[in-house]
Every structure is written in C-alpha cells, then in structure tokens.
C-alpha cells in the first residue's frame, strides 16, 4: 500500500466518475460543447444535405479538405464526436433527473420542512395580536392557506407551527422539460433509422407509383429498406402557376397547384386531389410535397436519314425566379446522312418570356408569354455506353463535335414553338412542337413526427412551469399571551427570490385578520405596509 491519502478503489473511482459526469458543472460544459460542435456543420457544406456544394467546396479548398474529411466536418451531425457530446450529455441528464424524480416523489409524500426558530429573521415577515386563542388562530390560518392551494402541514388543535408550501409545479415542470428532451432524442433516432425521403420529377400526363425504383433520388434511413413503402400512385393531370402581373411584386408567384389523379393501394377508386406548397398530400403518414416546377419543351429530332430519332417532352431545370432554364436533348439512335451511327446532342436554354440583353438570353417573366428555346448542337459519341451512370441533365461533350455555321462560328438557333431548325450539312433537324410543364415532388415518411411534436409540447409546457411558477413557503406560529389572545407570527420565503412574496404574505395576513379579530390595542400596527415596488 502506498502512503498518503485514502485509496479510492475501482468502485470508488466509478462513483467519482459518475458523480462528476452528473454534476451541474459537467452538464454546463457539455451544453457549451454541443453548441460549439454544431458550428462547423453550418460553415462547411454537408455532404448529405448539399452534395453539390460540398463537392465544390472540396475543389475550392483542396489542401484543407482531406483534413476536414478526417475530422468528419462534411458530415458533422452523424460524426462520432458530435454523437459523443450529445450521448454524454444525455447520460449526464439521466443521471441527474432520475434521482431528482425520486427526491421529488419523496418530497410530495413527506411533511413540509421544519419551521425556522426565529421567523423574524426571514426576509418577509409579519406579526400581530389576535383576540382569539392560539388554536383557533392556527386552524383559521390553515384553512386560509389551504384555500390558496398551499400544501399545509399542521396538527389540528395545537398552537402550530404551520408549515405550508406551494409551487411544486416548478420542480415538476423542470423534470418534465428535461425528460421531454429524451423524447426528442428518441424521435431523432427513430427518424434517422426508419424515415424515408425521395424526390421525383413528373411531367404533365405522366404517373408515379410509390416504389423505390420509381424515384429519381431515394434516401432511406439506416434501417429502412424501402420495401414496405405506402402503396399509392398518382398521375399529374396538370400543373398551374399564377404570377403577379404588375406592381412592385411583378413576377412573384401567387400560387402553385399540382392536380393529381390519385389512387391509394392497388384497387381503391381513383380521385382528384390538389397538392400545393405548404399543403402536402398525406397518405397514411407518407406525405407528398410539391417541391418545384418547370417547363419541358416538346421536341422532335430527325436524323440524317429523316427518321425520327427522338420525340417527346424534355424537362429543363430552372436557374432563377423567372425560370430561365437549362437542359439537354439527346438522340442516341441517330444516324448521319450516309446512314452511319452518329449520335446527336443539343444543349441550351428555355426562356418562358424571352429578353435578349447584352448579358445574353434572359427571361423577364416566369409565365410562358414569349417562350423561346436557344440551342446549340453536337454530334459524335454521347458517352452513354461507357457504363458510367450519366446525369440526364448534362451533356458530356468530350467525344462530340459542335456543329459550325457557314461562317465558322458555333451553330446556335433561337426557336419559337412551331419552329424547326436544320442542322448544317444535312445532319438532321429539330422541331419545337410545344411546351409541357413538370412538377417535382418530395415524398417523405417519418414515423417519429408525432413523438417529436409531443415531446416538444411537453418541453414547452414544462419549461414555462419551470420558469414562471414561484416555489414558496409560508410559516405561521401562535404564541399565547398572558392576558388572553395570542400573538401571531407569519413569515414567507420565496425560493426564486421574487419580491412578490411580500405582497402575498401581506394578503394572507390580511385575510387571516378578517377571519379572526385582532385586539384593539394593536389596531394601529395592523395597517400593513404596502409591498414595495420592485426595484431594478
């Protein structure tokens, strides 16, 4: 054995560790750490939420990114160190509130605490003479306090003392608040394990059924397979947007409405429904949100032999609030004038209300008032056969050649609906047949929504009780006087330090003096001080 202080032993160490972990100081430090740990999550684009921004950030900060990657800064909210902070905090919280709940339950069952010997030492006190005897005075006092919802401990038929307490809801609220934090944690965990979200772009007239393969992009939770998605489907009958046509808000959307022909399950009758921004369609907990919208020019591409190589609507993606949109058209089956395979690709802009400025082709209004498509064209290899999955909205022009005009400049044409452009050298043509709209939807299922909302409400209510309810104690004692009657002493203590205790004590005393007469001789003393105005 070493000399010196007492050895703690394993149990001792564990106890020390536990006590430190569940101390208020540790909780405070962990709370500050939690706030600090969230900061990088807002400064560095998160790979899960903003993949394109994260990729761009990686390119821009090439030397820093590997370090940030190692630290998990691209995925802060599922990084081990972030989890470590909040898990420690919740262990601390559990270790803190369980004993407090036990203590609270015990306090509710036991008598109110001891009465201080000298009531006049307390910050708020009153005393006066009563004509009634001590027992009578005290039982009257007990009933006054009970009527004011104090918990009173008092032996009837004695001189007191009375100990009364009120405001237990403060501690209860605090416990409910902290317990509800666990509810939130559970909700977040359930959400990240079992929720599913996915996006789908649907053209007017096209349909969607809720199965994984139909999504453009599907993100299941860690334990969600996507096999048991809510069975439903819909067809987009039409999408309409209305815009402010004049005034300072010209161009602002007034409404977006997607009209769907909706079928639940496999054999339920179809019905028409509307989905709007902020008004999702709720199908048994799975919600369909209107996420975005845009235009899809309808085109027909003919190749060098005059054969239709591609035909149909092509969704273009909006770039600004006036829906200047970019898109590509691919015709992989095209052949050249000699009949040899030579794929065609087009890329360009769609402008619902075209305006040509020095800065280029712009759109000046989101509605299709002067729809125009501006395209350039390529031929060669679209790269579709390479096996690398390709973005349908991008043209890989690596192995393609841009068509040239007769003067050698890049070939480009602006088309109105009904127009047709011929490619140089008889390579084919493209006609702009019309315009359709598309709407994109987010389809989300999260089984934890109600747990989260319930916990949040409990948290709010608990917090209000914890911060607004005053916990206070009142004590009374009656001292028999030699000449008959008694002297009544009352004192109050507000554990929240509020100055309103003075007022409350005065009211209680006044009520009591209404019930049991004061002696004449102290009538002048029974005028009570007005409670002081709280001074800040």
């Amino acid at each position, binding site marked *: 054995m070493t000399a010196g202080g007492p050895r703690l032993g394993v149990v001792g160490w564990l106890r020390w560790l536990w006590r430190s972990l569940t101390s208020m100081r540790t909780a405070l430090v962990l709370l500050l750490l939690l706030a600090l740990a969230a900061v990088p999550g807002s400064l560095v684009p998160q790979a899960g939420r903003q993949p394109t921004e994260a990729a761009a950030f990686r390119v821009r900060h090439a030397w820093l990114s590997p370090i940030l990657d190692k630290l998990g800064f691209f995925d802060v909210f599922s990084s081990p160190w972030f989890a470590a902070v909040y898990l420690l905090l919740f262990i601390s919280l559990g270790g803190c509130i369980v004993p407090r709940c036990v203590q609270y339950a015990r306090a509710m069952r036991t008598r109110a605490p001891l009465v201080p010997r000298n009531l006049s030492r307390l910050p708020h006190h009153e005393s006066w003479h009563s004509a009634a005897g001590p027992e009578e005075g005290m039982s009257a006092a007990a009933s006054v306090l009970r009527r004011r919802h104090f918990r009173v401990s008092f032996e009837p038929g004695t001189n007191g003392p009375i100990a009364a307490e009120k405001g237990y809801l403060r501690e209860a609220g605090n416990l409910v608040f902290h317990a509800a934090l666990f509810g939130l944690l559970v909700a977040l965990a359930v959400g990240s394990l079992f929720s599913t979200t996915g996006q789908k772009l649907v053209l007017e007239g096209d349909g969607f059924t809720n199965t994984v393969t139909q999504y453009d992009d599907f993100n299941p939770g860690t334990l969600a397979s996507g096999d048991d998605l809510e069975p439903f489907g819909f067809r987009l009958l039409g999408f309409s947007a209305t815009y402010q046509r*004049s005034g300072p808000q010209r161009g602002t959307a007034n409404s977006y409405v997607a009209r769907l022909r909706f079928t639940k399950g496999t054999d339920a009758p179809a019905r028409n429904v509307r989905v709007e921004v902020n008004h999702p369609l709720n199908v048994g907990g799975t919600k369909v949100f209107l996420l975005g919208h845009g235009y899809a020019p309808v085109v027909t591409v003919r190749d060098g032999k005059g054969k239709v190589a591609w035909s149909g609507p092509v969704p273009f993606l909006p770039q600004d609030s006036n829906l200047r949109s970019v898109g590509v058209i691919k015709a992989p089956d095209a052949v050249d004038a000699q009949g040899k395979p030579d794929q065609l690709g087009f890329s360009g802009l769609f402008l619902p209300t075209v305006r040509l400025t020095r800065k280029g082709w712009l759109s000046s209004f989101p509605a299709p008032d002067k729809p125009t498509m501006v395209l350039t064209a390529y031929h060669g290899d679209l790269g579709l056969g390479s096996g690398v999955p390709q973005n349908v909205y991008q043209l890989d022009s690596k192995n393609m050649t841009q068509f040239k005009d007769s003067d050698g400049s890049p070939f480009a044409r602006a088309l109105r609906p009904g127009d047709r452009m011929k490619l140089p050298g008889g390579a084919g043509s493209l006609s702009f047949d019309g315009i359709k709209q598309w709407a994109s939807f987010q389809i989300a299922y999260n089984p934890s929504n109600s747990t989260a909302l319930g916990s949040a409400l409990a948290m709010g209510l608990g917090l209000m009780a914890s911060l607004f309810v005053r916990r206070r104690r009142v004590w009374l004692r009656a001292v028999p006087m030699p000449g008959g009657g008694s002297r009544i002493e009352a004192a109050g203590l507000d554990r929240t330090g509020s100055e309103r205790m003075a007022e409350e004590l005065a009211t209680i005393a006044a009520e009591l003096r209404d019930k049991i007469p004061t002696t004449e001789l102290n009538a002048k003393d029974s005028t009570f001080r007005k409670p002081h105005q709280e001074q800040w």
Partner: protein
Amino acid sequence: MNPISLANQSLAELSNWAMYSAIAVYLLAFLAACAEWTFGTRGAIARVSEKDSKTAAAIRLEEPAEAAERHSRTGNAAARETSGGGTTVLTPPASAPPKRPEKPGAPTDGPGAAGDIPKADLVGRIAVSLTALAFLLHLTSVVVRGLAVGRPPWGNMYEFSTAFALMATGAYLGLLAARKPVRWLGVPVLFSVLVTLGLAVSVLYVNDAQLVPALHSYWLWIHVSAAIISGGIFHTAAVVTVLFLARERWEAAIASGRSGGRLATVWQRLPSAQTLDKLSYRLTALVFPLWTFAVIAGAVWAEAAWGRYWGWDPKETWAFITWVAYAAYLHARATAGWKGRRAAVIGLVAFAAFVFNYYGVNIFITGLHSYAGV
C-alpha cells in the same frame, strides 16, 4: 401602371417616409438621453463631495459599521415603540430604504442617469417621450410596409431588421410602461436601434417585395413574429448584461480601494451589479420559452413545407446553437462557480449567435432559408 400598383408604390413610399422620420426622432431621443447622463454627472459628483469620501463609490456602498448602527437603531425604535403595547413590528419601518442589499455593505442601486438633478431628469423625460414618438412612427412604417407588400412585413432582411429594431424599442418602452425604473437603458438601446435602422435603410433596403412561395403560409406570422419578439427582448437582456459586466468591474475596483476608472460617474449611477444581473436573468427567462416556441414552430413549418422537421439547414443549426447557448446560460445561473461574470459572458455569446443567425447566415451561408434579399 395600373391603379393598384400605384397605390402600393405610394404606400411603400409612405412607409419609407415614416421610417426616415422615425430615425430622425430616434436620433433626437438619443441625444436627449446622452444629455441626461451629462447633466446628471454634476449631481453624482456633488454627492461625492458632500459625503466627503475618498472614492466615488463610498456613497453608494453602505459601510458595514454604519449599516449595523442603522439596524440597531431601527431595532431599538421598534422595540421602544412596542414595549408598551406588547406588539412587535417585525417588518422594517417605513422610513427604511425600499430595498436593502442582501448583505450589509453590499453596493446599492445608483440613482439613475439623471443623478437627482432636476434638469437632467427633465431631459430624461423628454428623451422617453421622443422615444415613444419615434416608436409610433416606426410602428407606422412597419405596418404600412405590410400593407404595401400585402403580407407580413418581415419577408427580407430590410423588413426583418426594422421589425427587430421595433421590438427592441418596444421591449424598452414596455419595461418603462410596467413602471420598472430602467430609463438608464435609453442610451445603449437607442444606439443599437439607430445602428440597426441605419444599416437597414442604407445597405439592406430592397424595393421589390418578392416572397418565395414557401413563405406563403400562416406560419410566417407565427414563427417569424415569435422570433422577432424574442429578439427584441434578448437584445434588452444583452444590453443589461453588458452594463452588468461594466458595473461589476467598477464595484470590484471600488471594493479593492482602486479608483472607478474614467467612466466611474456613469457606472456609479447604474443599479447595482446584483440588480442588473437579476434583471437580465428575468428578461432571458421570460423569453426563453417564447424562443423555444419559435424554434418548435419553425420545425413544424419545415415539416409542412419540406417534409422534414429538422434537417440541420444553417438557419436551423444556428437556431439550435442559440437555443443551447441560452439553456447553458440558464444552467450557469444555477451552477456554483459560474454565476455572475461567466454566466453573463455565456448570455452574450448566446445573443451573438442569435444575431449571427439573422445577419451572418443570410449573408455568408446559403441554405433553404435564403430569403435574404441582399
């Protein structure tokens, strides 16, 4: 242009006109509030020489011996008075100062900016009246802006800033209306209101009133107005916290016999550090549930608009940071060794996070919430 847009344009101009007038009156109110402090200085100095004490502080620090003497005197008086009648008045006599420091010898509240000088007091009252007038003009501007754009007037940073400044003044006037003696808050509150409005009209002003469709929701009223009201009151609490830190330093300097520094006459007229600390705590505790509600309402809205209630969008992340920091402040107030200075610093950090969420996140970080309009 059609008549409706003309009407909207002229409403927008009326709103701007009211805003410029409000700024002008705020400026006058600010100058008057500064004048109150200046005129009140003489009163503070006069009291020092009258009491002939070495340090400026001594007059506000009840010396323990004197305090003890006073206690025994009042005690005797009470006993004498009551010895005949057999009644003891346990309450302090009415002549006692309204609120005693909790420990004898602890610093008491200062007299306020005017320092008992009638002229300074008059100027202080004028400052409050001007502030109230500026508030009404400011309120008019915000309401008319709402009418001009046909939606809640907090859809971009210009509108958010003006609404936030309105709430900051509102919180100050609200405290005065509740008869709290806080006129000394005028100078710092008006200063930050003027800075906020100055930035709003010069840098952040946007004429067009585009609102992304995701904001077409009654949650815009609920969530954003809760956040703005919280902001106004958090702002007041932060101002009080800064003053607490200053006054506490001064009290510490005085207690250790040093001079109070160049601004001693200002710190000395403030309420005691303890009073300031309590006030900032009360204000924070008052709005923390509202801020909690604002965050929850935001989550409910996000669920209704985007299909997830929490996605760690930068705006959500900073709301979380702000919330956790304020929770840490409330905790610190109940943790041994963290009360006072340290808790105050945490409170200021929390307010900084709140402000960053509205300016920093909108300007520097892109996310779903980018309605900044800058």
